[in-house]
């Protein structure tokens, strides 16, 4: 084993050892917030992720479809049908996350 790999391994071990007391301090400070409040924050974050990723995916689908219509305008009807189907299937994944968020927001399953 080279000197460099021994040094890297030692640094990694020291870093791991240093991180754990910091974690304990954070959880001690964060026990003020209840699970109910965290679930609402989680719902917001989950929806943001879902909306962003679904938008990216739909953007790729639309760009590919428009490009292929430009290349072959006579197939526009078929491409439009496939595009709509693909867009709705991608959007339905974001809708599933919306439903979980709605459940966390309004049905509030975690309050005491």
């Amino acid at each position: 084993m080279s000197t460099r790999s021994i040094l890297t391994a030692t640094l990694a071990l020291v870093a791991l050892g240093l991180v754990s007391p910091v974690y304990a301090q954070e959880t001690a400070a964060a026990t003020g917030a209840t699970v109910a409040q965290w679930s609402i924050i989680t719902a917001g974050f989950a929806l943001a992720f879902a909306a962003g990723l679904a938008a990216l995916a739909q953007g790729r689908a639309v760009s590919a479809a428009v490009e292929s219509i430009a290349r072959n305008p006579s197939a526009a009807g078929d491409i439009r049908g496939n595009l709509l189907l693909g867009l709705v299937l991608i959007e339905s994944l974001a809708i599933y996350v919306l439903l979980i968020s709605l459940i966390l927001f309004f049905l509030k399953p975690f309050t005491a």
Partner: protein
Amino acid sequence: MEKLHHELWIVHAINIIFGPIAAAILRALGRDVPAHGDVIPDYLAIIIFLTILLTAFSLVVRSRLSVENPGKLQIVLEDALTGLLGMLDDIVGPKGRRYLPLVGTLGVLIWACNLSGMVPGLMAPTSNYNVTLGCAITVFVYYHYHGIKEQGIGAYLKHFAAPPGAPLWIAPIMLPIELISHVSRVLSLSLRLFGNIFGEELVILILASIIPFVVPLPMMLLGLLTSTLQALIFVMLTMIYLGGAVQSEDHGDEHGHGHAPGVAAQPAVQL
């Protein structure tokens, strides 16, 4: 969140007329009846009302059909019917036309239910999960029934174990995957429709509770678009599932060239 339930006079009227009968039937079946409030829930009353309305409309249109002098309504309806039959032929194949009754009825009913969320005196029955789950379970039972009727139960179950063209030893891997994907079709159909319609309605409600004047209007326009689109997608997915169930191996890849928005994408649609 303030109460989402809204008292509609149509629901109230139906409950005054049919409430005691429904309460008597429920008590005879041994189920408890709510003492105050409506016995018949609002989504049930609205969907029965819409069914009666659509049936009456169809009967009136049918009595006024004419071959040599069609009116505008007849031309529009014939266009819609031709479009639906074309999709059936593309996606399901040459035997697709016999599934037109269920597919057409589901399409028209879901479209009417979605749109009645925008009408002032009505609510959208599809904004309640019971209704969309009922539609999805209907589609599930229907396409399995027709798959078994077309191919016989042995060949149909063999499709679950090993898709055509694959060796038989992958059956232990394929069987759980196929079962889960078929059950998830029910969930995805119902949750997609419910989530879209209920979410749209909720957004309009929240916007209207903040600024009721002009701001909900773009969301209402979006609601009109997604109502039609979701009905179309429900029907298209029904046709894709039907096509997958009734196609047998010998002409499994005859169609799929040309315009088939679903056949080529059928393996990819297994959500």
